[in-house]
């Protein structure tokens, strides 16, 4: 099985799915499920036996552990989300196009990961952009798609400029060779690094390029948001890892001043990551729409990932890779639960919902496990990555960046808890009394994803060992060490199964106490303490609107960066209007006047 055959098969199948969907929506949607599952199974079975041997002209692929890791994450997310597609076919205006672009974007991401040279990577990068860009407007916003395209393309173009700049100086497009050759000249290397990093920044959603994330992820169709947030932003992380480790940037910037143990350029870039964490967290706390909240949480998590990658320390990179894995799965799961709720109730605004646990208990448990992972609480995968990242920061002593990371970490408790409390718990609204649990086709993938998160939180060693393999493939001298069940860090060890074991032990003790004590009597939801008042409307009893109002008030008057970009766009439009007004009129006199003036200027200019 070669990568080229897989990608070509995916592209051909995507077009085939378009036609199948035209015949029958449901069959087309199930085709996407089958195709993505098949791809996942092939990747899992082939493992190292996948080869990049076959190629067409410049389309050449190379198989690396990093690429395999990212592809597996992508495939898990895509295949699990695909289970939701059949239920959404009747809600989307262009079902055929949706299924086709779904598979086409998957083909694009696999192409990006396994690309051997920059041209191939760029081709597939752009394919991902335009495939996903056309799905977004099927949801709630048309402008979101244009903003997504414009910002993403800005990054792509700086990336392209850097690719050609490296080619002009070193004569090769091959990723490994090109980047290694760049080590020779620090200026070119740093320029290329920053230009390419911009593409990674924008894709990952780092401040100040984060504004497209909430617009696109929040407004995309409910089944595509998990792919955007859990999957496609990780392309930015992939690019960042490649250029940070293959240059490697720490060697190139050796001669700069060092601050907290890293060159100053790296520290400045890490500050951007830190700001994203703070901005993402604060904005997420404010949101009423569950999807926008999760989108801002992706911004914050992008910050963690970026800091982990830029530190170039074996614990930090391992932490970043596990965080990518954990966040992809947890974020996809959270989005899927919101999609399930939206499927049954028709809305994602938290203030309009409440008490969903009584009707959708399994969805609730899935969401709970997802947010435990996102908040970084054991025994889920999120804890492992946070632990590794904190250890790495403590090792370096970067307390300013650590402050923001702690803030983001604790702040994440706030925003992940909000949908739990407002949407799932609390009082059930009367109009939702007939809501049923999500259909079985939706429950299966959600439970599988939760299971994965739990498994790797309790037994993370296989995951950590794979990150060690990736690190050595990327040229690290020292890789993260694990032994049996323990992860060894620089200043402490982590015994994940022990923590789970202790928690389970405590759980048993608490359960024993609970069961020994006398049984409680069940009462209805409205039967609560009201200091003597009688209330009959559940909605008055539900604390849902502006949940964190006191905290939000503290930063109400924050500067708005969206306004900055909107002003920039408006200036371009005004410039265009001005040109149209001056030069393009229907009176021949004006045209002739301009011709004469220009000719005079040209002739005078020639004489100078």
């Amino acid at each position, binding site marked *: 099985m070669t990568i080229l055959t897989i990608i070509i098969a995916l592209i051909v199948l995507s077009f085939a799915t378009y036609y199948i969907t035209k015949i029958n929506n449901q069959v087309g949607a199930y085709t996407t499920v089958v195709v993505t599952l098949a791809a996942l199974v092939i990747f899992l079975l082939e493992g190292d036996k996948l080869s990049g041997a076959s190629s067409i002209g410049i389309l050449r692929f190379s198989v690396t552990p990093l690429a395999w890791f990212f592809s597996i994450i992508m495939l898990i997310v895509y295949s699990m989300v695909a289970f939701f597609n059949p239920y959404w076919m009747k809600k989307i205006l262009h079902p055929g196009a949706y299924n086709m672009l779904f598979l086409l974007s998957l083909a694009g991401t696999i192409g990006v990961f396994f690309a051997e040279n920059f041209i191939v990577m760029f081709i597939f990068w752009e394919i991902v952009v335009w495939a996903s860009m056309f799905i977004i407007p099927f949801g709630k916003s048309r402008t979101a798609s244009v903003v997504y395209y414009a910002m993403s393309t800005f990054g792509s173009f700086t990336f392209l400029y850097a690719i050609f700049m490296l*080619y002009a100086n070193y004569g090769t497009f091959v990723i490994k060779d090109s980047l290694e050759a760049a080590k020779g000249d620090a200026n070119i290397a740093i320029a290329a690094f920053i230009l390419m990093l911009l593409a990674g920044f924008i894709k990952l959603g780092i401040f100040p390029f984060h504004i497209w994330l909430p617009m696109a992820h929040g407004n995309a169709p409910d089944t595509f948001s998990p792919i955007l947030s859990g999957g496609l932003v990780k392309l930015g992380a992939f690019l960042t890892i490649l250029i940070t480790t293959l240059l490697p940037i720490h060697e190139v910037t050796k001669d700069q001043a060092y601050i907290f143990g890293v060159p100053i350029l790296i520290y400045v870039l890490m500050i951007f990551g830190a700001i994203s964490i703070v901005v993402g967290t604060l904005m997420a706390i404010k949101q009423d729409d569950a999807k926008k909240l999760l989108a801002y949480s992706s911004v914050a998590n992008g910050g963690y990932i970026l800091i982990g990658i830029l530190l170039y320390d074996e614990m930090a990179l391992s932490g970043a890779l596990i965080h990518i894995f954990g966040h992809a799965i947890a974020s996809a799961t959270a989005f899927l639960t919101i999609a399930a709720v939206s499927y049954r109730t028709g809305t994602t605004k938290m203030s309009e919902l409440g008490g969903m646990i009584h009707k959708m208990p399994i969805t609730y448990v899935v969401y709970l496990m997802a947010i435990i992972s996102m908040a970084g609480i054991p025994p889920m995968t999120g804890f492992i990555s946070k632990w590794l990242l904190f250890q790495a920061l403590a090792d370096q002593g970067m307390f300013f960046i650590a402050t923001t990371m702690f803030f983001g970490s604790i702040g994440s408790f706030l925003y992940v808890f909000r949908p739990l409390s407002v949407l799932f718990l609390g009082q059930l609204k009367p109009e939702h009394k007939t809501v049923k649990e999500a259909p079985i086709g939706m429950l299966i993938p959600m439970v599988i994803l939760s299971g994965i998160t739990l498994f790797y939180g309790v037994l993370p060693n296989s995951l950590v060992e794979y990150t060690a393999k990736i690190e050595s493939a990327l040229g690290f001298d020292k890789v993260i060490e694990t032994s049996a069940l323990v992860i060894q860090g620089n200043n402490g060890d982590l015994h994940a199964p022990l923590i789970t074991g202790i928690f389970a032990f405590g759980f048993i003790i608490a359960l024993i106490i609970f069961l020994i004590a006398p049984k409680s009597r069940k009462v209805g939801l409205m039967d609560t303490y009201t200091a003597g008042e009688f209330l009959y409307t559940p909605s008055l009893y539900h604390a849902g609107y502006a949940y964190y109002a006191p905290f939000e008030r503290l930063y109400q008057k924050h500067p708005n960066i969206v306004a900055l970009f909107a002003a920039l766009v408006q200036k371009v439009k005004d410039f265009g209007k001005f040109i149209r007004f001056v030069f393009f009129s229907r009176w021949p006199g004006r045209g002739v006047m301009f011709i004469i003036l220009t000719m005079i200027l040209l002739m005078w200019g020639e004489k100078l």
Partner: protein
Amino acid sequence: MIRPVLLVVLPLLIAFLSVMFKKQTKPLLLIAVLINAVVVFVIDKGEYIIGNHMQPYGIVLNVDNYSLYALIVLNVLFALLVLLNLAKITKIASILMIALGGLNGLLMTGDLFNLFVFLEISAIAAFMIVATNKKLIHVFNYMIIGIVGSVMYLFGVILLYSQYGTLNMNKMAELMTTTGTPATYIPIIMIFGGLAVETKLLPFNGWVKGVLGNSDSLVGPMIGSIYSGVMLIVFGRLFTDVFVLNDQVRILLSVIAIVTLIAGEVSAFSTMKLREILLYSSVAQSGLAVLLFLNGYGSIAVLVVFANVLAKFILFMLAGVMTNSHKKSEHTEYEHILNNTVDNHDDISTLAGIFVKNPLNGVAFSVASLSLASLPLFFGFFVKINVLYSMFLRGDYVLPAIILATSLVEGAYIIRMLVVLWNPGKEGEKATKEAVTSLNYEIDQLVCMVLLLISLSLVALGISPDLAIDRADEAGADLEYNISTEYVELEGGKE
């Protein structure tokens, strides 16, 4: 052994015949167009002397790879355009013949004054073709500016004749290289100005908005795609094969091209009217092609022109049809033609979601637009990659930045246009069938299929561009001062 002069003479002859046989204009037109489209594939390359007057005294027709490929594209597209607009061509069949003859002559001629003659013929035919859309003030504007341009060109030719004593292009090229830098470049600037009118450079292009902004499915592709392409090829021939510029003049003229590029993209970004977006995009692409020709990237410029011609053909034709949409309950198109009224729905938001009702047209339109926005899997992507590749190979770092910046703006407005046309609905609301516009238009099945085929060719070239790139390489090899000889393509690409 078919002489290329046939391509010019045959249409002109049939044009005169059609004046006499008024009833049979349409069939005559069809015969002429089809014969041209077939003959162009079998003519031989070489130099043809007209009327037995030897060079450099007589007129010469120059058919090398560069002209041949342009001729093929011109004749085939012209034939297609005529076949797809059978209803509209009855009145102007003779004019179309003259246009065809003039355009063919423009591409083949090897004599500067002959070029002027053909330029005038094509221009006058263009004026009359544009006049079919009844917006006479714009035609008038076009006429005045066009004539000013032609006069400037003639003036430049006269000065050159007095300087070098010959009008033959080959001889002129030879003399320019051997006699060193001339005292003044004014004639060349004059010729540049004259051609700048037709190739839509700023600020010579005041006419474009009126003409193309009110175009229908005949005028639009004709002026926006066919004429545009031919004029750019002619420009390329003159400025990359014949004239020798010094660096200062080159920079001056390049500034005009860059200004055009930027102004075109920015203007397109600021408007929400369908045809205006397309015409400003054409202006910008012309600026890009002129910039490439001036700086010696001949073969790449040919690629740019080719991609633009194909894409704009589809886009202008569809735009012309779409802007004649009407509500189902209103008059049909026949009543429009009878009553001489035209409902012009140009704004994109009134056409929101129209592709939901016309998916095949939507696919053709989308493919052409995405090729224009240079996204991969479409031909425009490889064109842009090669533009940047050539520039970086030559060590140019500023121009690529400008081209990428304008490309970003271009992509933004194209995507904005596409997204609205496919997905209706206010901001904040889901795209639903109910929000789709109630306007719709009628389009011939044949037109639909042909446009789809052309767009599929853009996809095929996008996946395997080697066919086009090799031809462009051969064409560029015929240009004297072409410097771009390496390309990024699928097979045997250079890394």
